[in-house]
């Protein structure tokens, strides 16, 4: 079955958290981030380059991530992003907010069903 795409608003609110969490483990290049989101979400979340890249720019301007051109042996030159200290703090903050948000939503909808 063709995976359903979530509404743009939902995706917009979560994209920064997604990127930050993916960069927590190690630096990644832009296309890799998009592919990883799609893979880990089981295809539920798909971001085109045109929507992902401006977000990367915004986050870099905020100082949460830092891009750097790297040329590895046998590979083309790519811009790899890494998490900064500020980005780590933002990630922790957003994780907490997101957990609280999801928990709050859950309480409302479960209570309504009950």
């Amino acid at each position, binding site marked *: 079955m063709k995976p359903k795409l979530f509404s743009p608003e939902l995706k917009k609110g979560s994209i920064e958290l997604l990127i930050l969490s993916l960069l927590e483990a190690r630096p990644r290049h*832009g*296309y890799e981030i998009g*592919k990883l989101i799609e893979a880990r979400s089981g295809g539920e979340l798909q971001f085109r380059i045109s929507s992902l*890249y*401006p*977000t990367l*720019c915004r986050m870099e301007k905020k100082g949460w991530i830092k891009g750097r*051109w790297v040329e590895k042996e046998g590979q083309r030159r790519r811009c790899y992003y890494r998490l900064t200290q500020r980005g780590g703090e933002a990630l922790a903050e957003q994780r907490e907010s997101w957990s609280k948000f999801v928990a709050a939503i859950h309480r409302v909808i479960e209570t309504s069903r009950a």
Partner: protein
Amino acid sequence: MRDWLGYVREHLCLSELDPCREEKIIQELASQLEDAYREYLSAGAPEPETDARARRHVTDWDQLTRDLIREEGANMGPPIDRWLEQSEQTARRKGPRWFLLGDFWQDLRYTLRAFRTSPAFFLVSVLTLGLGIGASIAIFSVIEAVLLRQLPFPEADRLVMVWHSDVDKGNAFPLSGPDYYDWKGESTSFEDLGVYVIRRANLSGDASSERAQSVLCTAGILKALAVEPSMGRLFLEEEERPGADRVALLSDNLWKNRYGADRDIVGSSILINGESYSVIGVMPSDYEFPIPVWNESRQPEIFLPLTVDRENPGRNSNWLFSYGRLRGGLTTEDAEKELQAIAARLAEAYPDTNTGTTARVIPLHEGLVRGVSQSLWIIMGSVGLLLLIACANVASLLLARGSSRQAEVAIRASMGAGRWRLTRQLLTESLVLAAAGGTLGVLLGVWGVDILRQTIPANVPRITGLQIDGSVLLFSVGVTLLTAVLFGLIPAYSRSQVDTIQALQEGGRSQTAGRHRARFLGGLVVIQVALSLVLANGATLMLKSYLNVTASPELLSPERVLIAGISLEGPAYESRESKAAFWTLFLEKLENLPGVEHVGATTGLPLGSFSNASVLVGDEPFDPTARGNWASVTWVTEDYFHAVGIPLLSGRTLGRQDETGEQIGVVVNRSLADRFWPGESALGKRLRGSSSPPWFDAKIVGVVDDVRQWGLELPLQAEIFFPFNLFSREERWMVVRCTISPLSLVPLIREELASIDRNVAMSAVRTGVDLYDDAAAGRRFRTWLFGLFALAALALVSSGVYGVLSYHVVERRHEIGVRRALGAETHRVLTWILSRGLRLCLLGIGFGLAGVWATARITESMLYQVSSTHPLSIIAVGFFLTIVALVASLIPALKATSVDPVTVLRSE
């Protein structure tokens, strides 16, 4: 496979962003699209499909552009940016032949954007260039008006000055009446030849009396100059003859100011020197009678025919200045040879008066500006030095700025831009800077010309024509282009040479490029210091010369002395007795005015008396072949010395008794007494005129102190003072010493003068202090100008040293951090940076000394009683430059001490 880089560049337009940032975004998007493409291809999809799938990652390029601009926080650029972009695209669409123009628009766009992100750099550079270019334009406009512009007469290259000259020493002096007639009669080299003298004329009549500058000239002078009056006609030769109708030509200025621009003035009568003259014409408004700089006369208001007696005064009275127009095809050398042959014949025919004299002919333009041309060219050279300092300053700014833009240049190089393309883009930056600097320079030049017009000494010839005209603007364009090349070429070539990989690695630093740049920058500072030393040393020496020139005015309390010029012209004052009567009555009336201590009159004031004569000392026989003893000659009243403030050293001043008898009484100055009677008293000694028979026989009755006669800077002359009433010359000077403000007496004096004769006026009213001020005006102006150049140079040097050391600190930040981490104390870091500034300064001083020595001969001509290699001046200037350099080095040095080693090392 698709060229993804070209594909992104074609669709994405981020001209509002910094060029470096724009390139990064383009490269990254292209990289991601290529990743997508390769992924789809490796999954086995056919090529057209993978291409389409990759392209679908971005369907709305406009939206992406907006999103990126928003995220980057950039604003839409100014209209000029968008216009340049459209121009570039238009040019490129036209085809390959227009690519160069397209490249130029692109370069211009990048340049303007780059300057918008560095407004401080742009402003400082433009101000620096504007200063140098503006000064060059202002001074060149003076050069152009005085030295380069053709004289405003038809075929001006045929106009010449004609002089008598010593055969042995070559000194030039005016013609005598008889010699003038003989030269004119026998010579065939001239189309027209005439003579003139400058006098004052008393204008009276319905309006108040006025003393106006006049030229008395023969018809040949005005014919030679070949300028027709705007109304009426020029003189005729018959109007020069004694008894001819009295006619006059007016200047346009006088016609407008005194006669209300009366259109019927031609043919009407006006009162000049109490006599009626018929106005025959009015000269054009832009007419300028050629007057040499040493004459120090203003432009004439009236032109009157000059009657030159063939016999009287004789051949030993040289009082006529001569201009002529050569016949077509003849040179000044041809005319000079001919006149010298005639002079030789006259020397044989009149050995008593003409032995040892010959003729000299020089181009009129050269004769007019002799005395100022060398000074002007030296000033132009100094401005050139200032401009070079400004160029070196901006070049160092560009070079220092280059290091922070290495990545941008590297990106362009990595994208295929060749070295020439990069150099062209960087040269465009220089051209834009130069154009902005040149525009500011023109504005500053216009302002400078305005100031010069008001401050430049009035006796500089042709200065009334000072303006910014076509040739000055052409010069501005030339100077602007030259500065662009001078300050732009080396930095552009240096910056276009970039190690791409090193420059693109973050934190990477090209050690070699940094060292080269540092060496260049250091070299530029050394050049600036060297040139500044030459300028500042010149300014210091000029100041010393000015102080020498104006030190110790010889007159006692000149601020209490009032001076005014009075001319007794016309039939009422033809005889010596009538003049004597006027002056006796006038001086008596002045003595009775309140506050007046002493009154006197003279034919020649201190610092401005140019009459001299050859004298026989004691019983020395007259020898026409001998050089003779020359002395300045002046006629003065009894109380003149007390009035003007010349101390009497021995004997007495002149009295009535000295005017008569076989031997008249004269007073001499100390120089004459010491020269002819060293170690003994000159009182009672004999002096006679060097002629046969002697034109005077005198006994010395008094000796006064020396006062410079021929200006402040020419050597002191031996001087003889004759009794006032013995001379019949019309122009005299009134001198009044008072206990109150001298100028407050002027209205009263005018009243007394009018009560004696309403047709006589006085002019050139000033105090004794003004006498010195006026005499020093030229030197004061030059000193002020050089001082200004030196100050500007020092300001540029200090900013240059500051800039270079700031760059040095930034470049060496890592090294400083390491040194601090290894335990280097604050004072050691401070000393390290300060010593670099000091080293550059000392090296510059070394080269500057060579410059001072090389220009010593040129500078010498501008100085007075001080050597161009005066050690004290060089030491003082060198010391001052060192202080300036150290102070300029202080802020960067203090910044270096604030470098945090932890931050620096962590960031690496």
